[in-house]
């Protein structure tokens, strides 16, 4: 009898045990680590058009140059819709693209009008829908503006494709036959416009923060001087003509000052010229070389190259607020600095066993996060894109030199194509107008 009771007791126990969930699945926690490093896969479908424009390829190149996107080539596209209605999302979801840009271009009088849509492939969401028009001559700017909107929508960062770059070219030839030009082009190197042509060397252009003027070094008259030129009118004036070196001008973020290097009758030092009063302020005064100043966003602090500690290194100094602080420590040669628009990143030309390469580090990190951006070995002083995501710099190539753009995120660079000759001293211009 007792055995029988036990028997049933065990059965009941077994039933109770079965009733209790065997595995605790109250909450699933899954760790995803690594993933595959890749630019954001994006499909930019060729725009439907009766014109002979090809905006989509300009957009693709812009996005690719940023290093943060991996645009699909046209042969990877499963179809070529031009409106959201035509998009079969299931078809796109099977592919790699995470985002989709579709649109059309129509000619309306002397202008092109583009209508485009940015779509999220995974959820079918429409992230942007815009109409952009521009004169036929500025057809490429439509593409750059679309690229800017796409970039902003996806990264949250303002795009810097619809911007300008300034640079100097030098045509080869005998010394007395050489030609120097100051050029302004689109950020992808297209549409170059010569703003100054000279038989004397031209150097170190710097943009006014409103993008209307350039200051640069010209050796006309066989001596160096700082010149300021209005890009809209072409009018120019000489800002400095001190004895010795007049070099490395840098326009302040607020546009009211220019920092520059003057040697006068001794070693080069950093000075500031007030553009309103023309008052000159000396920033450095030691016996070493101090040059290549650039501005922190506060419009006060200067970052510059100095060999006061032996080899060239980057220092930071605020006029009237104590002595200079050294910023670079990891390399034996650090020069040609540039400060990112947000003041967080320092770019430079770093020298060592691998030649001269573009490198970056955070301004607050003391060099701990120093890393190289380029790997050519014969690069020159870099310049930040206004959104801080890219650097443009000259790189010697064969007998000449070219301009390259490298994204700060990721590796790789894109070479801007020019007809011929040496191209150097690029300066990336500011945003044009208000953000769209």
């Amino acid at each position, binding site marked *: *009898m*007792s*055995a*029988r009771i*036990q*028997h049933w007791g*065990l*059965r009941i*126990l*077994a039933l109770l*045990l*079965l009733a209790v*969930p*065997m*595995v605790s*699945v109250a*909450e*699933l*926690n*899954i*760790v*995803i*680590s*690594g*993933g*595959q*490093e*890749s*630019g*954001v*896969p994006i499909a930019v479908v060729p725009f439907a058009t009766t014109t002979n424009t090809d905006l989509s390829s300009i957009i693709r190149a812009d996005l690719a140059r940023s*290093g*943060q996107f*991996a645009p699909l080539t046209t042969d990877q596209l499963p179809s070529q819709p031009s409106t959201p209605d035509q998009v079969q999302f299931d078809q796109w*979801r099977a592919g790699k693209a*995470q985002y989709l840009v579709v649109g059309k271009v129509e000619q309306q009088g002397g202008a092109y009008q583009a209508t485009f849509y940015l779509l*999220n*492939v*995974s*959820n079918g969401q429409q992230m942007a829908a815009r109409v952009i028009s521009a004169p036929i001559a500025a057809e490429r700017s439509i593409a750059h503006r679309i690229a800017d909107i796409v970039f902003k929508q*996806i*990264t*949250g*960062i303002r795009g810097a494709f619809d911007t300008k770059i300034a640079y100097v070219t030098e045509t080869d030839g005998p010394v007395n036959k050489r030609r120097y030009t100051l050029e302004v082009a689109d950020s992808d190197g297209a549409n170059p416009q010569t703003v100054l042509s000279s038989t004397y060397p031209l150097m170190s252009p710097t943009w006014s923060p409103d993008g209307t003027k350039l200051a640069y070094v010209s050796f006309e008259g066989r001596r160096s001087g700082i010149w300021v030129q209005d890009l809209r009118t072409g009018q120019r004036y000489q800002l400095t003509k001190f004895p010795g070196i007049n070099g490395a001008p840098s326009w302040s973020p607020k546009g009211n000052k220019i920092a520059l290097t003057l040697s006068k009758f001794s070693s080069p030092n950093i000075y500031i010229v007030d553009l309103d009063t023309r008052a000159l302020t000396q920033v450095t005064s030691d016996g070493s070389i101090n040059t290549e100043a650039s501005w922190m966003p506060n419009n006060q602090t200067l970052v510059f190259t100095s060999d006061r500690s032996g080899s060239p290194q980057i220092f930071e100094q605020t006029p009237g607020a104590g002595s200079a602080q050294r910023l670079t420590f990891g390399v034996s040669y650090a020069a040609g600095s540039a400060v990112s628009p947000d003041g967080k990143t320092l770019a430079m030309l770093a020298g060592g066993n691998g030649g001269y390469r573009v490198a970056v580090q955070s301004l607050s990190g003391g060099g701990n996060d120093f890393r190289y951006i380029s790997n050519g070995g014969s690069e020159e002083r870099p310049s930040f894109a206004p959104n801080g995501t890219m650097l443009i710099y000259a790189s010697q190539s064969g007998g000449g030199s070219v301009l390259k753009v490298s*994204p*700060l*995120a*990721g*590796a790789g660079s894109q070479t801007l194509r020019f007809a011929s000759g040496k191209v150097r001293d690029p300066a990336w211009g500011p945003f044009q107008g208000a953000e769209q």
Partner: protein
Amino acid sequence: MFRWFARMPLATLLAIVLHLLIVLAIFISFKMHAFSPASEASNTPTEQTIQATSVPQSAIDQQLNRLKSADAQREQALKQQKSEAEKAQAAAELAASARRAEQARLQQLEALRESRQQAAAAQEAQLKAAQAAQKQAELALDSQQKALEKIQQETARADAQKQAAQAEAAREKAAAAEAKAAAAKAAELNKQAAEKVAAEKALAEKAAKAQADKAAEAKAAKEAAQQKAAKEAADKAAKAEAAKEAAAKARQAQEAALKSQLQDELRTQQSQGVLNAYMAAIKNKVQSQWYKPPGWEPQWKCNVRISQASDGTVINVKVLQCDGDQLFQRSVQQAIERASPLPLPADMSLFQSSINFEFQAKP
């Protein structure tokens, strides 16, 4: 016969009276004899079993032979009496002789009663011993059962089996001990019975007639006892069988419980396996869809909670805490959205509508 009666009426009458007296005496002695074992038997039913079953056939045969010879003697005595009556012996002499015989018989009967009481006492002592043995055996059984219960509580299957085997061995050992005790007891009782028979033999020699009747009654009683014993033996066997069955059932129940437990464990393991596979499938799909944008930093982490429909379609992605820039955060969201519908588990009871993900930039 009638002629014979008619010729010697007095002798015949005397003979009849004598016979009646003998019958009465035997009846009384039977009554005295018959009740004591019966009461003993009712007191200790189980003991009788062993007593009866163990009496060897040869003893019975011996007794039967003795009884046969007693019958023959009685026949002869009767003949002698008849011839004496025929010779017309004095009735008084006969009566005196009869009285003497009766006296002797009564004395014998008293002796027999005493010896029987002694035997009964001895038997009772034996029975008590046997009872104690039985009780011990029962205790052993009890402890064995307790051991079984204990075993049932054990979870580890191997241990439980081992213990069950041990318990089984203990049980067998106890059973063997019990059987041995029973055999010893039976032998003792056998001996006792033989002694009893010897006493009866002596009595029968002294009073053949009474002895014969008593022997017959003893035989009857013996047979009854034998039957009863047989019955009780059968009962005991049945009881033992029942106990054995109960033990077997308990073992079966225990085994069933262990088996069920094992199955539960197996089920748990299987569920864990299914769950692991489920999580791995989700992880693989999401990870394969994660295009981590350049510019990530190793310490970046992003915790998101998603909810999914029963077909695995991601309904909602909630970013709980996220390092990195928007592009990184978007890549995480994209990875989940692109992995939708998420894989389903082989066992839908493991399906979870809410899942937490931690994305780690560091590979």
